[in-house]
């Protein structure tokens, strides 16, 4: 197992592996997202309290889960890069940041579009919304810091420390609805006991969640391949690859 991981983490085999895995991941993502949209917009019934406006949830909730998940991947890859100086970990952390920022942005905007008709306000400064906004600033700060340091390897170290320090925000976001009185409601799917959501509404939510996750992995591979080519452009394996293609 460790051997396999070790071989995979070498840039040339990662580059080849990513190329093979890409179409499958993207295909799966598109299929699941299309099925989720159909189930969520057409099949699922309206909610007893919120009417049709709750359908925003099928975009909002998976985006919010991804915004947290991608940050955890980024912080873990950053820690690996700091300790073992593995190039692949540096690339994965750096390639995750813009995707995470996108999902965080989507979470905040779809949340506002849900909040206006339901709560009566686009935005409130409660603990959940504020901590999610801080997450967006963490992602943007990460990308800013990275672009400010010309040397890729020192940039990877500095940004990894920022990602690790910022990771305290992740449990705060998740538990904010329990620790403080918030306008945002509590967890539905991840709370202990049975989820308080009807199966016909849970299905599209899960389809979209898995679809978004596959999309992230596919997107990550494209971005990581691009960064690998850039970082390793003078290496032997890249010139061999190019010679074969030319």
């Amino acid at each position: 197992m460790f051997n396999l991981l070790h071989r995979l983490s070498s840039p040339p085999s990662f580059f080849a592996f990513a190329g093979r895995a890409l179409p499958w991941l993207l295909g799966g993502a598109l299929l699941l997202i299309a099925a989720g949209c159909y189930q969520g917009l057409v099949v699922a019934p309206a909610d007893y309290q919120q009417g049709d406006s709750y359908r925003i949830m099928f975009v909002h909730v998976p985006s919010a889960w991804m915004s947290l998940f991608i940050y955890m991947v980024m912080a873990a890859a950053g820690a690996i890069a700091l300790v073992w100086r593995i190039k692949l970990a540096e690339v994965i952390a750096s390639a995750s940041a813009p995707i995470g920022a996108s999902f965080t942005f989507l979470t905040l905007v779809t949340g506002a579009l849900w909040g206006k008709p339901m709560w009566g306000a686009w935005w409130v400064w409660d603990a959940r919304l504020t901590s999610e906004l801080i997450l967006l600033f963490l992602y943007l700060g990460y990308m800013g810091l990275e672009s400010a340091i010309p040397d890729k390897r020192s940039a990877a170290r500095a940004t990894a420390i920022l990602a690790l320090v910022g990771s305290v925000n992740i449990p705060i976001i998740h538990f904010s609805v329990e620790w403080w009185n918030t306008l945002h409601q509590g967890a539905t799917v991840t709370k202990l006991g049975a989820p308080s959501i009807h199966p016909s509404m849970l299905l599209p939510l899960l389809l979209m969640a898995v679809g978004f996750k596959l999309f992230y992995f596919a997107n990550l591979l494209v971005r990581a391949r691009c960064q690998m080519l850039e970082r390793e452009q003078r290496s032997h394996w890249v010139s061999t690859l190019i010679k074969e293609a030319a």
Partner: protein
Amino acid sequence: MTPKRTQRLLLITGLVVGVGIAATLASLAFRENMLFFFAPAQVLAGDAPVGRNFRLGGLVEAGSIQRAGDGLTVDFIVSDGAATVPVRYKGLLPDLFREGQGVVALGRLETDGRFMAEEVLAKHDENYMPPEVAEALKTAQDNKQPLAGRPM
């Protein structure tokens, strides 16, 4: 693991643990200020600020909504199960505002104990179901215990 890597691992573990402790202490210290709203029981106990705006949160008591003749002014009672506060509000209400549903009102407490709201936000719960299922659940619950309160 080479000694150098072990050292780096310890260093970043220490960093994350340290920042975690600092964040925990900070959020414990700010616990009061991070409250988005006060419940009626807290208001009656005198925890809410006097003479300036704060937010009051709870459930709109069933049967308590009264609309005045001008069509804009609404009176209702906010309850948390333990205590109640009467609220008056003049303006448009969000779509989710209804009896038995969570609500957060921004305003101040008058001397007569009435809460004059400037803004009313509806809070929705974490339950999602089709109307027929909600109806069936309600019938089943009404048969069992007529006065079942729903947690906020």
